């Protein structure tokens, strides 16, 4: 009886309701219990007063890539809450204004222009999707406002100009990491590739992987593709099964990979799946369940990392948003902290001094790996390879550039 009442109400309200015991973490951010650090959060009042430094973020909060945008936003938000709890920057609070770009580059360009000219933000954070980041970079560079992208891995983004930085590694490196791992550690000779044709990230990784793996003497048995938002991959997997590969490289996002793993097992494909940082999310284990066990992916950091900073981040994030942070949240968190550090180091908030300060970032201890920016404004980081076991990712090895 206890269970029936809430269920009925939920159905009547026509809202999809999670109806669970208190012990489980809340699925929505709004209802999360505020942590001690978030007590005097950036959440309350005071927008553009003189006591606030305003940052801008653009992310996909709706549309096909909303999941990633929301994770990034949460990471940024958490970083700023902590910074403000620790006294802010030069006695001022740091706040962020987030605009939704509906996963469209032209909306991202509009939002970033609005942030720069109307809201007068001193620094831009954003985008996950490289198309949108490229659009933003163009505008930020033209307006001479520094921009840090947390997770756009396409090399072209930072090539837009000296104002554009990133705190993650780039596609060519990550593709190489998995090719090397598959060939050297897993001793695979024949690998099939299943890429997301709607995602430049996925295509980029697949291309690099294919090239490197072939260079190392391996063979690509076939390349199939799907589109973000698909849920039925049986046709592609059946075609892949015929080529009898040793492994399948699926450089997509967790939202699809989990389901792909299940359907692969359902069709009797038992070889391990491999992927990139797009896999990193607690959702992967929910969506993939037992099917994803024994698969490998490259990532920025390992949640096993005993570093107290990492563990604290995971704990705080869980408390605030109810779930283990994914790679995008971690990168958003790092990007915001790099920004805050730069704000602290810079003598003023003019874009020139901010740019200088960001460019000098070296050995910055981020939760998603140590960040050192090279002269091309890319983070030089090593990557870790993780194996999925018992519903979580366990550390296997580190591969350096």
């Amino acid at each position, binding site marked *: 009886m206890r*269970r029936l009442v809430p269920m009925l*109400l939920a159905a009547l309200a026509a809202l999809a*309701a999670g109806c669970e015991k*208190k012990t489980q973490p809340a699925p929505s951010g709004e209802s999360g219990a505020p942590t001690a650090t978030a007590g005097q959060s950036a959440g309350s009042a005071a927008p553009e007063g003189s006591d606030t430094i305003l940052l801008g973020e653009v992310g996909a*909060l709706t549309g096909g890539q909303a999941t990633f945008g*929301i994770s990034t936003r949460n990471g940024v938000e958490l970083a700023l809450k902590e910074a403000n709890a620790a006294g802010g920057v030069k006695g001022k609070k740091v706040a962020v204004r987030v605009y939704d770009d509906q996963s469209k580059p032209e909306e991202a360009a509009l939002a970033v222009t609005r942030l720069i000219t109307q809201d007068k933000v001193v620094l831009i954070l954003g985008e996950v999707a490289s198309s949108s980041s490229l659009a933003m970079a163009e505008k930020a560079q033209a307006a001479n406002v520094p921009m840090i992208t947390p997770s756009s891995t396409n090399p072209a983004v930072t090539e837009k100009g000296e104002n554009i930085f990133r705190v993650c590694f780039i596609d060519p490196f990550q593709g190489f990491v998995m090719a090397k791992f598959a060939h050297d550690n897993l001793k695979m000779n024949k690998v099939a590739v299943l890429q997301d044709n709607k995602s430049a990230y996925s295509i980029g990784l697949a291309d690099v992987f294919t090239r490197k793996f072939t260079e190392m003497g391996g063979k690509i048995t076939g390349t199939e593709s799907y589109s973000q938002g698909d849920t039925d991959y049986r046709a592609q997997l059946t075609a892949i099964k015929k080529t009898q590969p040793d492994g399948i490289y699926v450089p997509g996002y967790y939202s699809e990979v989990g389901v792909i793993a299940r359907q692969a097992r359902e069709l009797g494909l038992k070889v391990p799946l491999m992927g990139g940082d797009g896999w990193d999310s607690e959702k992967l284990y929910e969506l993939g369940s037992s099917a994803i066990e024994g698969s490998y992916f490259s990532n920025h950091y390992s949640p096993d990392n005993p570093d107290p900073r990492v563990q604290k981040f995971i704990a705080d994030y869980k408390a605030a948003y109810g779930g283990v942070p994914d790679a995008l949240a971690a990168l958003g968190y790092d990007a915001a902290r790099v920004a805050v550090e730069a704000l602290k180091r810079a003598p003023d908030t003019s874009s020139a001094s901010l740019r200088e300060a960001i460019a000098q970032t070296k050995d910055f201890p981020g939760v998603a790996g140590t960040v050192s920016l090279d002269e091309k404004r890319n983070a030089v980081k090593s990557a870790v390879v993780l194996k999925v076991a018992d519903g979580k990712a366990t550390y296997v090895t580190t591969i350096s550039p």
Partner: protein
Amino acid sequence: MAQLLQHLINGLAAGTIYALVALGYTMVYGVLKLINFAHGDVMMVGVYMGYATAIGLGRQAQSSLWGVALIFAAAMLGCALLGFFIERFAYRPLREKPRLTALITAIGISFALSYGFQLDLGFKLPLPGGYELSLALPGASPRAFPEIIRPTEWLIIGDRDVVIWNWQVISFLIALGLMLVLQYLVYRTRFGRAMRAVSWDHRVAALMGIPTDRVIALTFMLSSALAAGAGLLYAIKDTSVSPLMGLYVGLKAFVAAVIGGIGNVPGAVVGGLVLGLVEEFVVGYAASTWRDAVAFGFLILVLLVKPGGLFGRVAAEKV
């Protein structure tokens, strides 16, 4: 050979879902000549209702027979109610207006549902006994749909070349059942006769004493319930639910309905199956990147050869 068989099974499974969703499009189009663009999103809402029910039931109860029945019942009833409200407040006031007008409200509702469900807003109410009610919009992330039918192998062909799972069989039977019930409703009952009369000409039907408003509302509820059922089968098959799922499936099912001849009940079923198979074989034997282009190209080809779809007929205008 095994591969061909596997593709056939995959294609039929996908096609069955398309067919069920397409039936909803076709029925609504039949009575109102309205392309109900919100249909896919109604389906999505239904899936989330089923999801909430399943979570509420807990792991043990959700996979029992009555649990599954309850999940389907809750989703289908909830969706019927949703369909009723949409028809009553968004379509009925516009019935005598230009057809495009209702189409725009359909789009508006589709936007509101699919984007609204991406919000991660919610609140909690404490209930006595250590429980709390959490009413929350699901948020943008996909969620794993619980395995309400525990997977076991039903039939193994060759050296595990092709495996047919129990849930595939059960889903197929449920889909078949739903189609038969619909067939019975449309062609064997008073309501069905009234529905077909309204579909022929709702003004004349009204003159003949058929309560057109009620028939149209019932048709909407029926098609929405069907969508919920289809959505649940879809969620069982592909194990994940997300707010945008309605958009993708809806569009494909719409194409299926048109291929079969929109407004034609058997046509929707055939259209769905044909589309599922075409997509499957394009991916399996040609290039997977061109799947959607081939699906739409096939649609255009069918329309050029048979302007009314496979089973539809173009009504000759009386001059």
